[in-house]
């Protein structure tokens, strides 16, 4: 009854808002319009994408089995921590060098939680140098929670996640120094990296560490591929937390993302055919960036 009352109130309200927006959009000049009609294609993409992801999430919630291909780099995380435990050496984790408002950093922090849980279980030392204080706060929270959930709250100390420098190359020099002095058995780089990617990965390689990297920046991928044992490329970085958790709800999001890729590939093929025959002008407008 309550739900029905809510919908009877919200529908007219929604209709009024839409009418106002439509009126504004049709009658106002583009510069004066309230709604950015030139971005309607982006809005459609957001709606379709959200619908697809939510649909798969719902299916996953209902218990539908979702296939996920193997990601060797993520399977190697436990192996790398195990190696560090056997050698009695630490694990070094870098969640990129960007701020916490960067989605790659959040993905890195999410993976850090998983890695910290494994190091807590094995009682392996973990070092997490960071470049921004806000990443420091988030990293400390995640690692502390991981140690508590692993039943080892006493093994946690605040200096596991440490702020080392705010400058890109000062950060790199400090981390390289740590690698050469402490000789970590495993180095894990997950997040946004720039020119320092090769400086870090080559030093880790020279120190004899097993190295796992993941970044969404195509220009840094060749460096990681050349210097690391395993590399997560692009979307694999964002899939990592879902892959490691095996939570159906999170896997649903990944499947939705795959379906969107099918849509995009189909649009590319249709676009190629239409443009080849000179009929693609209208189709091209659908994907115009504003």
């Amino acid at each position, binding site marked *: 009854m309550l739900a029905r009352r809510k919908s009877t109130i919200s529908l007219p309200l929604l209709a009024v808002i839409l009418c106002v927006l439509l009126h504004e959009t049709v009658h106002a000049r583009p510069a004066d319009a309230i709604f950015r009609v030139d*971005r309607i294609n982006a809005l459609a993409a957001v709606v379709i994408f959200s619908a697809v992801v939510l649909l798969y999430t719902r299916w996953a919630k209902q218990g539908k089995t979702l296939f996920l291909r193997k990601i060797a780099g993520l399977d190697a995380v436990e192996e790398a921590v195990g190696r560090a435990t056997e050698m009695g050496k630490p694990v070094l984790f870098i969640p990129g060098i960007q701020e916490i408002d960067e989605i790659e950093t959040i993905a890195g922090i999410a993976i850090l939680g998983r890695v910290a849980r494994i190091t807590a279980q094995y009682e392996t030392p973990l070092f997490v140098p960071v470049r921004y*204080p806000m990443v420091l706060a988030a990293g400390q929270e995640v690692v502390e*929670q991981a140690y508590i959930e692993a039943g080892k709250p006493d093994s946690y100390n605040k*200096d596991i996640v440490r702020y080392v420098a705010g400058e890109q190359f000062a950060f790199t020099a400090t981390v390289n120094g740590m690698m050469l002095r402490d000789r970590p058995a495993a180095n894990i780089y997950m997040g946004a990296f720039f020119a320092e990617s090769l400086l870090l990965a080559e030093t880790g390689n020279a120190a004899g560490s097993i190295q796992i990297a993941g970044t969404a920046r*195509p220009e840094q991928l060749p460096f990681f591929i050349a210097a690391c044992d395993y590399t997560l*490329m*692009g979307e694999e*970085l964002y899939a990592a937390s879902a892959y490691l958790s095996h939570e159906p709800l999170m896997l649903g999001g990944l499947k939705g993302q795959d379906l969107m890729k099918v849509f*995009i590939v189909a649009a590319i093929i249709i676009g190629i055919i239409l443009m080849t025959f000179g009929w693609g002008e209208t189709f091209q407008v659908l994907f115009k960036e504003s």
Partner: protein
Amino acid sequence: MKTTVPVILAFLAGLVMIVSFFFNPERTILGRLESEVLVWVTIVGGFSLLLGVVSITRVNWRAVQMRKSGWGYSLCTLLAVFIMAIPAMLPVSWSTKFGRNEGSLYDWLFFWVDYPMMATMFAMLAFYIASAAYRAFRARTPEATLLLLTATVVMLWRIPMGETFLRLFSDRLPEWINTYIMGGANLAVQRGILIGAALGAASMSLRLMLGIERTYMGKG
């Protein structure tokens, strides 16, 4: 409570960013929300700098106190942090060496110590590229051989002398490399990775907004 409040805040922050993108910032407050929120982020970031100073001081001071291996580096770090920061915070009216103006101690240290050291680190990249390239381009498999040949041709095309050498074979060879290797195969792969990464980022953002992804709080 500890989980619900961050999830609600993440949802609202994400919603603000999405809604703001579709509204005209000149006409509505909705359109201006994005830039407003980004200002808040900068302010919070400024305050959080104190956390960084506390962390760097605690870790390095402990290393010096306990004479851990490499404690000398920790001492240098502590000295560098405070010698740079304290004179920069003192008022210029006390001395021209204070503050961050031209001629101040901070200015001198930045241009004659910090900047050259950063440039040195960046310059060292050339040597690291050489050692990584040596490992990556060893022709052990057919794929590695193809990579080696392609890389050799591209590197020749990138240097003036190499381009002259390539033109000995055909005048159109440099343009061919640019069109088919860099603009074709290389760009196609880069775009493929970018599309996948963009969808991955969007999917993760949606999971964060809806509270499905809570690993960033150490949950799940």
